[in-house]
């Protein structure tokens, strides 16, 4: 798409509407056990026979993978597609890391504009996990749980909670929100 290049030169302009904060606490029934001690939670809160494992290669390769028993992985440095089954396990396994979720639909024009810039962000912020969710019929329960009206909507999570939300393809607002949350 030609706008992939022109969007970069047009700099970071907002395309749509409002910013709201909506803290949502999720009580996940899925639990995890960290196998790497330096990433392990200090308590036994997350322990289950279907536990997720944390694998880190942070220092040498600048690559950190969060895997779950559902056999998906979210790797920093790229955008990972999630669905209603894989999202919360990955969030739960993120520990202190900031998680950003791009909620998009198949035929949303602004979603296509911001997608390459979102990809660039994932390469820039290697301490943040970038996810995307196709808000189709299959993932409707998760979309409803998280709350979405305007597409795209970006949810920023930390410690298993939604702490910020950006409605619309507003790149500048998204960057500012990520900076705020990751440094908090």
């Amino acid at each position, binding site marked *: *798409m*030609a*706008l992939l290049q*022109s969007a970069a030169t*047009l700099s970071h*302009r907002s*395309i*749509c*509407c409002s910013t709201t904060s909506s803290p949502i606490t999720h009580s996940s029934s899925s639990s995890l056990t960290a196998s790497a001690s330096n990433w392990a939670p200090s308590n036994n809160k997350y322990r289950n026979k279907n536990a997720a494992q944390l*694998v880190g290669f942070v220092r040498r390769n600048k690559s950190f*993978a969060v*895997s779950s028993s559902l*056999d*998906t*992985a979210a*790797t920093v440095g*790229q955008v*990972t*597609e999630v*669905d209603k089954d894989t999202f919360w396990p990955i969030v739960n396994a993120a520990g202190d890391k900031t998680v950003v979720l791009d*909620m998009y*639909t*198949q*035929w*949303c*024009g*602004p*979603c*296509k*504009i911001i997608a390459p810039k979102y990809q660039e962000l994932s390469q820039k912020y290697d301490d943040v996990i970038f996810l995307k969710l*196709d*808000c189709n019929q299959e993932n409707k329960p998760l*979309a*409803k749980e998280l709350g*979405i*009206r*305007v*597409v795209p*909507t970006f949810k920023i999570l930390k410690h298993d909670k939604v702490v910020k939300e950006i409605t*619309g393809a507003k790149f500048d607002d998204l960057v500012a929100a990520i900076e705020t949350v990751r440094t908090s």
Partner: protein
Amino acid sequence: MTLQLQAPSFAATISSLASPSLTRSTRRFVIRVEPTEKSVEIMRKFSEQYARKSGTYFCVDKGVTSVVIKGLADHKDSLGAPLCPCRHYDDKQAEAGQGFWNCPCVPMRERKECHCMLFLTPENDFAGKEQIITMEEIRESTANM
């Protein structure tokens, strides 16, 4: 692996995606439904007419215009009405019946606000100079989706 299925009303593409896992590989199958060519043509003509009528212009990147037109066509196929593809709904059928978000939606009709970036006022940074889009443009710019 990609399978193409042709049905009377829908063309569906099933593609397999490899999970980016560092451990085991997993394949997920995602069904992408394409709108009918008839509905795409209807929404293409509607978009051109409404752009002229409202004094708005298509996006400088016609790919955005194409995607939204296909989204409208997809909803027209499935719901009978061109529900805005840039919103999420609890009950799409009810929303289509209610009409607020049927294109042209109320915000567009009242304030020329189109967050899909289909109809852009001239002062919008992303507005191009055209009120025309061909089926060929739509096909080409959405071919890899």
